[in-house]
C-alpha cells in the first residue's frame, strides 16, 4: 500500500506515470452559498433560494455559452446552441389525485412496469405528476417538486440546497441555478428503509424547449432507499436543452442505490448536467449513471466521501452513436479517511461518435486510510468512432492506496469469428460481445427491470449501427 504521491495541492507535481491534469476541476465541496453577500436574507428556504437565484442570474447574464478546448482534436462547444430561440415550456399539472396524467410518450416507452415507492415526472418546465406509495408517505417520506419544498419552507431544503453545487462556473450551470423550474425533492427520514425505487423522470417534449431540472435528495441517518432517475426526450428534430443540477446527501449510516438512465433521443439535444453525491459517516452509495444519448452531452459527476467511514461504488456506462458527442468528468473525492472507493466505467462508441471520459481520484490532505481504484474500459465499434479515457490521481495523503487501470479496445475479430462459427451472424456476435463488455457493470444494477431498460437501449444502438458494423468487417 505504498503512497502514490504526496502533494499539498492539486497543482503540485505528480509522479510522471499519471497523465496531465484533467481539463475540468472538481467541485471539491465548493458551494454557491459561500459567495452570497453577507447582507443576503437567507433565514428560510424561500429567501435562500431567491438570493441564490439572483446571484446566479448575474453570472448567467455575464457569461458566454461555454466552450472547452483541449489540445488536439477535442473541443466541447455549446456555441452552436441558439439559446435565445429556446423557451421554457410549461404544462398543466395533474389533478390533485395525480392519478390520471398520461406519461409523456418517451417515458411511457422507456419506464418499466414495476413496483416503485414513488414517481415524479417533469415535462419540459413543469412537474406534471407526483405519486408516492402509501407505505412510504406513512413513514414520513417526502416526494414533491423542489419548488414546493422551497415554498413550504422545508428544513432539509434550507440545510442542503446548493450546499455542494456552484452557479458561476459556466453559463449553463448559472442558467440552471437561476432559472430552474419544477424540480424534484426527495427526503427519506432517519431509519426508514424502502425497498422499491423512487423514480425521478424528466422529459424534453419538443424542439425549442429549454428544461432546467433540479434535484435534491436527502437521506437521513440509517435510511436505506433506491433512486432511478430517467432523463429523456421525445423524438424530434431541432435544438433543445436539458440542464440539471443534482445533489444528494447521505447522513450517518445511510445507504442508497442511485442509478440514472439518460437518453435524450435523436434530436439536436444539448445536455449540461452536474451531479454531486455526498456520502456521510459510515454511509454507502452505489451510483451508476448510464449515459446513452444526446447530441452533445457534458456531465460532471462527483462523488464525495465527506465523513469517516464513508464508502462508495461508482459505476458508469456510456454509449455514443452517430455524431453524438459525450464529454464526461467523474470524480471520486475523499475528503476524509478512512474511506473506500471503487470507480468502474465502461463505454462504447459507434459511427463517428466521440466520447471523452475523464476520471479523477482526489484524496485530500489528511484523508488517511482512503483506498480507491479507478478503471475505465472502452470499445470502439467503428473506425471513425473515438473515445478518450483519461484517468488521473491526485493524492495528498501518504497512508492511502489509489490507482487506476483500464483498457481501450476494438472488436476482437477472433471472438466474432468464434461466435459466427457457432451459427451467430455478425450482428448478433457483435451484440453478444458488446453486451458482455458492459455486463460487469450492468449486472451491478442488481435490478432486473432497470437492467432490461439499459440492455434494450444498448441493443437499439447496436441495431442502428448494424450496416456500419458489417461494412467494418467487409473492409478488413
Amino acid at each position, binding site marked *: 500500500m505504498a503512497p502514490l504521491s504526496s502533494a499539498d495541492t492539486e497543482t503540485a507535481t505528480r509522479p510522471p506515470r499519471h497523465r496531465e491534469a484533467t481539463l475540468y476541476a472538481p467541485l471539491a465541496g465548493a458551494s454557491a452559498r459561500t459567495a452570497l453577500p453577507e447582507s443576503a436574507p437567507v433565514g428560510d428556504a424561500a429567501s435562500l433560494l431567491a438570493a441564490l437565484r439572483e446571484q446566479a442570474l448575474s453570472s448567467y447574464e455575464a457569461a458566454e455559452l461555454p466552450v472547452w478546448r483541449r489540445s488536439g482534436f477535442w473541443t466541447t462547444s455549446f456555441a452552436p446552441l441558439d439559446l435565445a430561440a429556446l423557451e421554457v415550456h410549461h404544462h398543466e399539472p395533474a389533478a390533485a389525485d395525480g392519478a390520471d396524467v398520461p406519461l409523456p410518450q418517451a417515458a411511457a416507452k422507456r419506464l418499466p412496469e414495476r413496483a416503485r415507492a414513488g414517481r415524479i415526472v417533469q415535462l419540459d418546465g413543469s412537474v406534471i405528476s407526483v405519486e408516492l406509495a402509501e407505505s412510504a408517505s406513512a413513514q414520513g417520506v417526502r416526494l414533491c417538486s423542489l419548488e414546493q419544498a422551497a415554498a413550504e419552507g422545508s428544513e432539509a431544503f434550507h440545510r442542503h440546497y446548493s450546499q455542494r453545487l456552484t452557479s458561476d462556473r459556466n453559463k449553463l450551470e448559472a442558467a440552471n441555478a437561476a432559472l430552474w423550474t419544477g424540480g424534484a425533492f426527495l427526503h427519506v427520514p432517519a431509519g426508514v428503509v424502502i425497498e422499491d425505487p423512487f423514480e425521478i423522470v424528466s422529459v424534453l417534449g419538443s424542439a425549442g424547449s429549454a428544461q432546467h431540472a433540479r434535484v435534491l435528495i436527502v437521506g437521513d441517518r440509517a435510511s436505506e432507499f433506491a433512486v432511478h432517475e430517467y432523463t429523456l426526450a421525445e423524438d424530434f428534430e431541432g435544438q433543445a436543452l436539458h440542464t440539471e443540477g443534482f445533489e444528494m446527501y447521505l447522513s450517518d449510516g445511510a445507504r442508497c442505490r442511485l442509478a440514472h438512465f439518460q437518453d435524450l433521443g435523436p434530436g439536436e439535444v444539448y445536455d449540461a448536467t452536474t451531479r454531486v453525491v455526498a456520502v456521510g459517516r459510515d454511509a454507502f452509495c452505489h451510483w451508476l449513471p448510464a449515459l446513452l444519448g444526446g447530441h452533445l452531452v457534458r456531465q460532471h459527476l462527483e462523488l464525495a466521501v465527506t465523513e469517516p467511514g464513508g464508502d462508495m461504488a461508482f459505476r458508469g456506462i456510456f454509449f455514443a452513436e452517430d455524431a453524438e458527442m459525450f464529454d464526461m468528468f467523474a470524480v471520486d473525492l475523499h475528503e476524509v479517511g478512512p474511506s473506500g472507493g471503487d470507480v468502474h466505467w465502461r463505454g462504447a462508441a459507434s459511427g463517428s461518435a466521440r466520447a471523452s471520459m475523464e476520471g479523477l481520484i482526489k484524496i485530500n490532505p489528511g484523508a488517511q486510510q482512503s483506498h480507491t481504484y479507478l478503471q475505465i474500459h472502452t470499445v470502439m465499434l467503428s473506425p471513425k468512432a473515438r473515445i478518450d479515457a483519461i484517468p488521473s490521481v491526485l493524492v495528498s495523503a501518504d497512508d492511502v492506496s489509489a490507482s487506476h487501470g483500464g483498457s481501450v479496445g476494438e472488436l*476482437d*475479430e*477472433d*471472438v466474432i*469469428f*468464434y*461466435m*459466427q*462459427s*457457432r*451459427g*451467430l*451472424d*455478425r450482428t*448478433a*456476435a457483435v451484440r*453478444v*460481445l458488446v*453486451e*458482455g*463488455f*458492459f*455486463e*460487469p457493470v450492468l449486472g451491478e444494477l442488481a435490478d432486473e427491470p432497470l437492467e432490461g431498460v439499459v440492455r434494450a437501449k444498448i441493443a437499439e444502438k447496436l441495431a442502428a449501427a448494424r450496416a456500419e458494423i458489417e461494412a467494418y*468487417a467487409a473492409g*478488413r
Partner: protein
Amino acid sequence: MAELEIRDLHVRHEDLEILKGVDLSIDKGEIHALMGPNGSGKSTLANTLLGHPGYEITQGAIIFAGQDITEAEPHERAKAGLFLAFQYPVAIPGVSIANFLRMAINAKRDEPIGVKEFRGQLETAVALLDVDRSFTSRPLNDGFSGGEKKRAEILQMAMLAPDIAILDETDSGLDIDALRTVAEGVAKLHKSQGLGALIITHYQRIFHYVTPQFVHVMLDGRIVLEGGEELVERLEREGYDQIRQEHGAVV
C-alpha cells in the same frame, strides 16, 4: 458426392501462401485423421473451412452438402452443419456457456427452443462430457483451464449436432481421464448421430477411442500421404523425416 469436398484449395494469409492445393473428401459417418508437423497448415485448413476472414482462398472450392460454400459467411456454414472445435478457443466474457448455446441453437431454428427441450439436451451433453451442471453457468472459456476449454468445445459440438466436425488438436492438453471422456464423447456422437469428423492431432492416443478410417498427412500446405490407421503408427515410430524425404519435394 461426399458431404464435405475440398478441391484444390489454395489459401493465403497476408502475403504468405499457406495451403498449396489441398484435396480432401469427408462423408457423414467417416472418421478422418489429419496429421502433420507444426506449421504445416492444419489449423489454416480448419479455419478456412469455417470461413475465417483472415484467410483468402486464391484457388479451389469447398463443397458442403451439395452447396458451394467457398464464399459463404461463417454462420451460414455452421447452420449448414459444419463445426470446428478450435485449437485455441477464445473467451467470451459475460456470456455463460448455457446462454451462448441457447443463442447458437436458436440461430439455426425458426422458433426459439423450448426451455424444457433445451435443458434436456444440456443435461445429456453435460453427462456425456462428465462435467458438472454448474460448469455451463460459467462465462464461456473465461479463465478456463486448457482442459476445460477442450471439454467446452466438445460440449458445444454435442449440443449443436453437426454433420461434419473438425477437431483441431482437441486432445492436446487433456489429462488421461479427460482425454478418454472427450474421445469417448466423440465416438458416441459418431455412432449415435452418424457424425463425420476430421481429427487433427499430433498423437496416436485419441485413436484408441475413435478409429480413423482415413489418415492424411500434411506437409507444407499439401496432403502428401494418405492411408489407413497403420499410418498413424508409422508416424509415431518414424516422425516426419522419412516422409519429408520421400514426399517433401513433390510438387
